[in-house]
């Protein structure tokens, strides 16, 4: 095969053996990456398993473009049943692990069973060994990666930190020292298998059907990415993101009770001053011109790579209302090293601070520092406690929803989360009806896996572009207006399809959009030698989306589970640009009806027989 290596590793940790299966039989219908991963999860797993038991396979899957020259083709998709939502758990990561895995000769890795004591998987081309990992257990991500590299920086590592070992629902899987499959508690699944890490080095390479054809396409694909309005600004986004969120009126502060935190501009200034003074080098992922990463080293605190992303520094700042950037940086480094999902963790911290300020944690947190908004020491302290499951941290480690159920006393009403209990990604949700719908119908509760970049996101700051995109996708500019319920179902379905294709082909969803399906289809054909069309790709996306749905239905999902936290319906925004906005239950349910119909699902959200036949499922 070209583009694919045609081998998926199956590692049985219980019986300590390794074998391979062919990718070919899945490639035609499920493309790769997320598509094949969900197919394997559906096949290998019975319904209703405990996510932290050996029956839950952990699947890493690259796409046919991963590791090729195609821009942003460093991606790998990770799927298992999520311990946080008990639904499909999926996350996608960039970096360099996916390409290295393919150069070693594998399209993916399926981990089944569980080891009796800590192990790691060592892959060097055809040599695949399950090794004792006792010496790695307990180490942070940075040291674990360093120890496994043994001086060869081309060794790529997927690992968990102490948070994953302790089965924290907010733990992700780190890819070397920066990228994460962060969301949904996949780190805990890896921890439950006592699999500390996977180290991979590959020198076999990857066959490409039409080398010259692919080389010829890449310049043009890069040019389209560089035409994105944000391209020039990316290296400054590490501090500018605060202003960007503000200019799109997407900001909120604390636990969703405040859209106009008075000290915020001071906090933004602090961020800018710190970053400007820091050692700063632009970085990016494999084959990607975007450079949304940077290595930042702040004297006296430490250095690490960080993505200019709503889920990182902005998330920590806006949720905790801490304006001391030094503390925020310390908190970020801790999350990266402990192996925590920064976005979920910051949401949980805000939840705890909210409860504390209402006197609802009086019996659970009696010590210093006071868990109040703005207290940087409290932020750092709580992150440590969550990662090590100490005291209140042990409760919060479950994630916002489960923690609120443990705490009780009305804290359930303060909890804000997406479908299944996954914390929402940093952005106000109430005025953005498409985003709200997306959070409710998504596969995994993860909105940025479903519809990141939805044109309503940037309606306030780039109205013309947002309208143009909306018109192109669904035929009317109106669809771009955040507060409109109309046209949103179609917009959401379109974006979901594009995200699924990015995650399945092995490209990043951010540069995926500006390049356009036509060019991606051509790159796929050049890499694999298999001709395709945008229409055929969209059909594959439909198939994958409906299979994800079948997975969740098998886990007991019904229409009523397609929702988000009650507060987003009951508590209108008190201030800010969207004052008075909340979700309207009736219109929200109407959006679901329309969305289900577009997907060929019945009014209960179950795929219809004719849809399954059309897509060739079961």
């Amino acid at each position, binding site marked *: 095969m070209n583009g694919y290596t045609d081998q998926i590793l199956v590692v049985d940790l219980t019986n300590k053996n390794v074998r391979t299966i062919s990718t070919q039989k899945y490639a035609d219908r499920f493309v790769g990456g997320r598509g094949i991963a969900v197919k394997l999860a559906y096949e290998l797993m019975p319904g209703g398993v405990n996510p932290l038991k050996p029956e839950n396979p952990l699947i890493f899957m690259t796409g046919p473009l991963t590791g090729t020259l195609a821009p942003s083709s460093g991606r790998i998709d990770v799927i298992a049943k999520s311990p946080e939502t008990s639904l499909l758990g999926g996350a996608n990561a960039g970096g360099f692990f996916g390409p290295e895995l393919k150069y070693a000769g594998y399209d993916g890795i399926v981990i089944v069973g569980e080891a009796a004591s800590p192990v790691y998987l060592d892959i060097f081309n055809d040599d695949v060994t399950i090794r004792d990992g006792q010496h790695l257990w307990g180490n942070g991500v940075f040291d674990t990666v360093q120890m496994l590299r043994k001086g060869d920086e081309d060794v790529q590592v997927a690992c968990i930190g102490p948070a994953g070992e302790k089965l924290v629902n907010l733990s992700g899987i780190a890819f070397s020292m920066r990228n994460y499959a962060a969301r949904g508690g996949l780190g805990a699944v890896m921890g439950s298998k006592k699999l500390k890490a996977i180290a991979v080095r590959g020198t076999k*390479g990857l066959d490409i059907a039409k080398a010259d054809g692919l080389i010829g396409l890449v310049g043009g694909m890069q040019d389209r990415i560089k035409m994105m309005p944000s391209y020039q600004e990316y290296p400054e986004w590490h501090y500018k993101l605060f202003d960007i969120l503000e200019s799109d009126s997407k900001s909120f502060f604390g636990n969703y009770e405040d859209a106009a935190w008075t000290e915020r501009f001071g906090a933004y200034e602090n961020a800018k001053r710190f970053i400007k003074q820091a050692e700063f080098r632009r970085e990016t992922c494999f084959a990607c011109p975007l450079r949304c990463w940077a290595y930042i080293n702040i004297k006296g605190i430490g250095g690490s790579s960080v993505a200019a992303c709503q889920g990182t520094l902005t998330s920590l700042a806006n949720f905790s209302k801490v304006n001391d950037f030094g503390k925020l940086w310390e908190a970020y480094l801790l999350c990266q090293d402990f192996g925590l999902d920064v976005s979920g963790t910051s949401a949980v911290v805000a939840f705890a601070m909210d409860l504390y300020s209402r006197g609802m944690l009086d019996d659970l947190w009696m010590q210093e520092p006071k868990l109040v908004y703005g207290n940087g020491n409290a932020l750092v302290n709580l992150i440590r406690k969550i990662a090590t499951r100490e005291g209140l941290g042990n409760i919060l480690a479950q994630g916002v929803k489960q923690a609120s159920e443990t705490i009780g006393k009305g804290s359930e009403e303060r909890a804000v989360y997406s479908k299944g209990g996954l914390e929402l990604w940093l952005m106000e949700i109430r005025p953005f009806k498409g985003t709200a719908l997306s959070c409710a119908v998504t596969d995994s509760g993860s909105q940025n896996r479903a519809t990141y970049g939805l044109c309503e996101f940037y309606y306030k700051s780039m109205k013309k572009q947002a309208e143009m995109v909306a018109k192109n996708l669904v035929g009317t500019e109106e669809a771009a207006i955040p507060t409109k319920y109309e046209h949103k179902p179609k917009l959401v379905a379109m974006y979901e399809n594009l995200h699924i294709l990015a995650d399945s082909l092995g490209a990043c969803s951010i540069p995926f959009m500006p390049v356009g399906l036509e060019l991606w289809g051509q790159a796929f054909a050049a890499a694999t030698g298999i001709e395709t069309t945008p229409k055929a790709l969209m059909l594959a996306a439909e198939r994958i989306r409906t299979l994800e749905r079948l997975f969740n239905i098998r886990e007991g999902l019904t229409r009523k589970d397609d929702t988000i936290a009650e507060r987003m319906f009951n508590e209108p925004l008190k201030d800010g640009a969207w004052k008075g906005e909340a979700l309207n239950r009736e219109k929200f349910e109407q959006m679901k009806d329309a969305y289900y119909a577009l997907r060929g699902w019945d009014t209960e959200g179950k795929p219809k027989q004719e849809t399954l036949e059309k897509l060739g499922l079961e």
Partner: protein
Amino acid sequence: MQKMIFIDYDKCIGCKTCETVCSLSHEGRVNPAQARISVVRYERLGINVPMMCQKCQDPVCMAVCPIKAITLDPALGTQIDYSRCVGCKMCILSCPIGGISLDPINKKTIMCDLCEGEPQCAKLCPEQAIEYIEVSLLPYRKRRDGVEKLETFLKEERK
């Protein structure tokens, strides 16, 4: 008129496009281990440095090659005749800058050949960190970069 690859390390973002296109254009497949250029990385420090043959005027590799498989082309500098290379690795050992690689599949030495005057890495580097320039321009370019750095430094100082 001799040209050379000019790498500005400060501009490199570590995307490895150069390695990827190098292997793809030489071998018809993607394999950074078979690339003539490689980005040396220190992840903990956020450092990425592309390394490759610098086309020495008086190449040590050519002098030590026991079977004269390395020759000097007036326009493209050192070139390896792969039909002669026996894989003794003397050139790799003697190269003062680590500019030569070992192809793990064919077990032979590989070195940048400047793609017959159209280096693919320079063409696709998204940051123009790799450029193909006239050798005579090099000192001028470096001097200009130096002045720019001084300017920035002085501006910071005056603040």
